[in-house]
């Protein structure tokens, strides 16, 4: 079990708050739509802090401007992957950004074993650190 505040992975914008309700998720989707950002849904069972590429649950929804329709996609992903980490992202294609503007977790495994820190002692007092996700000791799809 993770020993940090909330005993959970704290990536994303809102991991320190109680689980977001569908109504709260919809409000955040509406905020992104009001800025003309494209919503996307991504999932993974490898939550390593440097695992950039979570699986896309379809392409970002550039043409879908309806928050309830996007929430449906979020919930479909949750239904398909109830024990994965799922995040909603918002992408901004304007010049000078062309990157993610929002990212928040909307689903997580029932238990979160967290990460171990491997220390490899190299020359002098130096240590080479590796953050290792306990869950990834098992094959993909069997981790949580």
């Amino acid at each position, binding site marked *: 079990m993770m020993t*940090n*505040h909330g005993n959970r992975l704290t990536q994303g914008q*809102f991991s*320190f*708050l*109680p689980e977001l309700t569908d109504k709260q998720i919809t*409000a955040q989707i509406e905020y992104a739509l009001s800025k003309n950002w494209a919503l996307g849904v991504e999932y993974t069972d490898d939550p*390593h802090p440097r695992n950039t590429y979570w699986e896309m649950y379809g392409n970002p929804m550039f043409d879908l401007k309806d928050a309830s329709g996007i929430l449906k996609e979020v919930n479909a992903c949750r239904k398909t992957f109830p024990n994965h980490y799922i995040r909603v992202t918002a992408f901004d294609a304007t010049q000078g950004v062309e*990157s993610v503007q929002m990212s928040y977790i909307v689903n997580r495994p029932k238990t979160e074993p967290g990460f171990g820190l491997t220390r490899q002692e190299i020359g002098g007092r*130096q240590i080479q650190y590796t953050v290792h996700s306990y869950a990834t000791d098992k094959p993909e799809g069997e981790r949580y």
Partner: protein
Amino acid sequence: MTEETQITDGKKRYSAGVLRYKQMGYWDPHYQPKETDLIAMFRMTPQEGVDSEECAAAVAGESSTATWTVVWTDRLTACDLYRAKAYRVDPVPNTGPGTKTEQQYFAYIAYDIDLFEGGSIANLTASIIGNVFGFKAVKALRLEDMRIPVAYLKTFQGPATGVVVERERLDKFGRPLLGATTKPKLGLSGRNYGRVVYEGLKGGLDFMKDDENINSQPFMHWRDRFLYCMEAVNKASAATGEVKGHYLNVTAGTMEEMYARAEFAKSLGSVIIMIDLVIGYTAIQSMALWARKNDMILHLHRAGNSTYSRQKNHGMNFRVICKWMRMAGVDHIHAGTVVGKLEGDPMMIRGFYDTLLDTHTPMQLEKGLFFEQDWASLNKVMPVASGGIHAGQMHQLLTYLGDDVVLQFGGGTIGHPMGIQAGATANRVALEAMVLARNEGRDIWNEGPQILQDAAKWCSPLKAAIDTWGDISFNYESTDTADFAVTPTASI
């Protein structure tokens, strides 16, 4: 005002002796600045009896080609081109007879781009703020703003990483980043220092920070600090599943030593290093090149800036430092909090933030931005708000400063009654609750205190933070205020 103009007859103009600067050609009210000209705007307080146009011409002369007397060797050069041209002088509102301030003027001066070496802040500043600030004809002089031509900007690398790539590397989007400076800033051993770093990061901060004067002192040598801090960073990263960082200050007495410290930070896997403004423009540019080459975020602490940026009549405005630092290539710069313990008028600080973050900044006098500025695709610099801020001000901080900022709560984290982790958690919960509420369309300026109280009901660290610091504010008048206020800008 005497109608003196440039003497165009070559023989008269170059006969030995002393002429007025206007006669020498440094004042040209009909001059139309070229797109490639660099324009500087100075606030001048002329000496008694010195005419404002002559004073502006003198500033133009002394910051470009002139010396105190006529020299015939000018005629060996394209001197009409190289002479800077003062072309506009405006009296500063609310100065002069009948006010508390003696008469000041805004002087606009255009410089041809060929007066400056490409890619060198040192060369640019040697002209613009070189000799002229000690010049006797002016009682006081302040560089207020600069319009830097795109052609010149393109000779600079710009920020090593930039806001967009920094966020991608850290995997942190849609909210301000959170940091804290390790306290006490002097005296902790490496082992004790790393403890503070670990607690803050595990509790929920993204960054911890060395202070400006933590280098390599008897109580803690730099290698020891780096080793313990990276243990703390990695341990906190494993405990939370987030990328974490500690600004390792590599400031040292020589470039060789700074490079050695930066290399060591890199070998330990740090995502960020730090330098102080006092190392100088050239050293900053060198470290920015190193940072770009080594995938490192470069944090700049503005140590020393208030010695020349704070007084309104003399020195230089901080927005000019912001411009130069964006060109020089830093990724972070301390740019004010509005609500904290350090100097800062809300509109002026918004002007600094716009200067650091915009791709294109329009002229906005109420923010102290005297020129439109195209940033020529230079990366954005992340502003850092640090000094006397706490969780209870989160709604004000988010309203004034927006998402692209690092909010640094040093005392507001480490001084928390329940400990450092709790302090960090209080800040993170307050931030996330406020961002959520703002995105939901709530009026956080007015509902902010209630939003914090609601979150405090389920988050005891936040409750303790509000109980401890809820009433603390720093209400002092700012010294650096707008000359063209369109709305009241009282310090909150």
